[in-house]
């Protein structure tokens, strides 16, 4: 063949090669798409990705495998996640919907099933709370019977039983009172404690008080008076757990009733603490107007106002820390208000409340210490430091000794230093 004869096959070969190479690219692309799709799909029900890479060995946060009923073990894992994604939230909602369709007996059986699981106590309570919440809406009597029976689910949220019972008693007080009195008569609230206090009864009486204080003060006083004296203060200080008192503005007959109840049922020594208990919720509001209104409405005595100032400082300062506003400007406002309530003890109350901020983290503790030093320097009032030291054990001996050395009164200074050195409950 002449060289010219090689041209047609060469051209054909080049054309075929080009054509096939394009086809091969298309095939490669199609296969890659398929591979990606299969990998993504391959994760269904399998917590590991299919590629076996390092990152694929991480467990997936949401193992999306639906079960016909509620998978409690799976739910406990979801409750244990520090942050919950879309699918975790959908699974929680799904469990709620399934629970909503269950009968009382099925819900009680679910509680037994959860109790049998080997899971962390926090996740167990989160699941119990889901079931108990549905049961509370469906059949509060069955729920309360369960919770107050021996072996009933242990309630870890302080307000749960209180809220369920006060909710029911608010709608049907006669039935709630009959149920509670029936349980008392049946001896279901016995106690091994010295005060005879049974925590179920304390909670339920407190919830009943919440309902009666505004609607039937005489019945409220009668119920509390029927209890041993040692149990009364605990119930009275607990009933305002949801912070109702003082929220409705002034005047409020509930507040007058509350003051009268305390004076009718508690020993004089217990009255200031009970009067100041609602301040814990009132102090969450900006300013001091609500607290003034409340103290006036309950006709607080000077001693009760001092207790109120201490309660205000403790709560208010905590909120100031959380809002990053614990500073001289805010504390000046507090001192100006406290001076109108209890001029002699205002600074001491401030010192104690500042010391208790050591529980709010190292930053808050350091700021509180600095403010105690600042106000002592400004006012020369040794009571600020003395009160701080009384409540500041967690600061340790060395830091408190350096405070004690600032006390101006030599006698008080010597005594404080000696007490600090002898205190067996204090770290270095």
């Amino acid at each position, binding site marked *: 063949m002449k060289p010219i004869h090689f041209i*047609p096959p060469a051209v054909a070969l080049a054309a*075929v090669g080009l*054509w096939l190479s394009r086809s091969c690219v298309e095939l490669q692309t199609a296969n890659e798409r398929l591979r990606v*799709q*299969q990998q993504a799909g391959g994760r269904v029900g399998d917590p590991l990705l299919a590629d076996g890479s390092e990152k694929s060995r991480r467990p997936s946060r949401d193992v999306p495998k*639906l079960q016909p009923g509620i998978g409690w073990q799976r739910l406990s894992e979801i409750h244990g996640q520090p942050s919950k994604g879309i699918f975790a939230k959908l699974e929680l909602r799904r469990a709620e919907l399934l629970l909503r369709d269950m009968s009382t007996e099925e819900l009680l059986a679910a509680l037994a099933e959860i109790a049998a699981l080997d899971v962390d106590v926090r996740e167990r309570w989160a699941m119990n709370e889901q079931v108990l919440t549905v049961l509370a809406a469906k059949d509060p009597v069955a729920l309360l019977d369960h919770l107050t029976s021996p072996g009933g689910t242990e309630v870890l949220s302080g307000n749960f039983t209180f809220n369920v019972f006060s909710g029911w008693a608010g709608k049907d007080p006669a039935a709630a009172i009959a149920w509670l009195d029936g349980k008392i008569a049946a001896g279901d609230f016995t106690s091994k404690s010295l005060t005879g206090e049974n925590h179920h009864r304390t909670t339920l009486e407190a919830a009943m008080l919440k309902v009666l204080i505004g609607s039937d003060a005489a019945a409220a006083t009668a119920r509390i008076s029927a209890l041993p004296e040692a149990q009364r203060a605990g119930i009275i200080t607990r009933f305002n757990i949801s912070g109702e008192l003082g929220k409705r503005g002034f005047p409020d007959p509930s507040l007058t009733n509350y003051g009268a109840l305390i004076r009718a049922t508690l020993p004089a020594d217990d009255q200031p603490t009970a009067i100041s208990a609602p301040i814990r919720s009132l102090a969450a509001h900006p300013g001091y107007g609500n607290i003034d209104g409340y103290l006036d409405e309950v006709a607080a005595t000077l001693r009760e106002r001092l207790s109120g100032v201490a309660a205000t400082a403790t709560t208010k300062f905590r909120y100031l820390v959380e809002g990053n506003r614990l500073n001289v400007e805010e504390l000046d406002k507090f001192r100006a208000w406290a001076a109108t309530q209890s001029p002699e003890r205002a600074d001491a109350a401030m010192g104690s409340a500042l010391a208790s901020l050591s529980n709010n983290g190292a930053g808050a503790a350091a700021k509180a210490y600095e403010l105690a030093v600042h106000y002592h320097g400004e006012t020369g009032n040794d009571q600020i430091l003395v009160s701080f030291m009384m409540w500041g054990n967690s600061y340790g001996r060395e830091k408190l000794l350096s405070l004690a050395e600032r006390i101006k009164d030599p006698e008080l200074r010597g005594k404080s230093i000696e007490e600090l050195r002898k205190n067996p409950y204090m*770290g270095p």
Partner: protein
Amino acid sequence: MKSALILTVIILAGGVAADRIIRGKIDEASDALHKATATSVPSGKTEELRGETGRPRPAGANDTRSLLSGLLGLAKELEASSDKDDLATLDARRDAMLDWQRRLTGLEPEQMKDLIAGILNAPELGDEPRQSLLRLVLESLTERHPLEVLGIISASPTLIGDPGWKMRITSDAMIRGIAEAPDEVIRWYDDHGAAFSERDRDIITDRVLRALGQTEPELAFRMIKGLGIQDIEKATGAIASSARTLDQASESLIAFRDHLPTFGSAEEQEALRFGVNMSLITNSFNHGFDEAVDWIGKAGFSQKELADYVFRVRRNVRRDEASRWLGWIDENITDRSIVSQVIPDLVSDWTQTDYKAAAEWLEHQPDSDLKTSAVQRHVLTLARYQPAEAARWAARMPEGEARTSTMKMVFDRWRTTDAAAADAFAKRHGIGP
């Protein structure tokens, strides 16, 4: 020439045959892809799209236009069913979103960015469905490309409208990112952490530490410094309390001990050590007394650490485990000055909550100074409520200063409620006024 033409025809015929085979394989792959996509796209009809070559693309393939079209369809369905709150709707919604998540997880970051732009610019989407789709896309992207997600969040700070979701996706991306490239996450947080409020930063870092604390406590402790967290006590506490099992608690403790020398002064380290020990030991008691003391025994706590714990958190004891706990302290704490303070305190608490059980335990204790101290606290706790029983116990105390002062205190207390009975008791035992 003839042979050249024959060769040309053979080459062309071979090419056509080979192309047919390849086309067959392309069609097979396309069919398989189409089927796989069809099963994973339950909703959101996609219009037929044509590629640059003019060839029709299979509906639901992983190109961003068809994905966007499908996602918009999904958003419509979700919106249409938003007022329904029944199990069937929820399951359908979950299945649809799950299938979409599977598809989206396979995408590359650039495709995701295109999708996000498409979602942001889709005029037919309301705010809520737009945010739902963005969350779905970002959550899916977080699975395989967490660093890209962090980049998207910092480049578009207002992309995720809901602050709660923004924190959640950020913390998730950080958790995932730390597992593969901790230094890059640290660098990102250094550069962009300030865009979050202090409170949000606290929440994000807390979630990161708690999540890592459950699976990789060593990394979690390392991240305290890496992320520039100031409140080390709170951070170490968060990691310690994230342990769910005793095995996790052991891993946390080992990691904590390794990192402790890197945290602050000796005084600060002591405070941290106490906080973490307290958290881990206290949580161990949620597993029951037997497992807890077994774990404590193996955890390698020093005598000082155990004594510190026992001394400061003695009130954590469950009433029904009080006697076992008292026995454990007596046997395991060698510093008797601690034991002699703690056991009487515990007896006092126990008397308050179950005075009969406390009395029974005291009855069975051998005579010793420790027993005398414990009986004294029992008596003083009883005196306010049961003075006669308190007086009986006081009278059984061995002769000495403790007995004399205790009897006097019982008398003083009793006199305020029943003077005649108190006087009779004083006369019988020669207690002066």
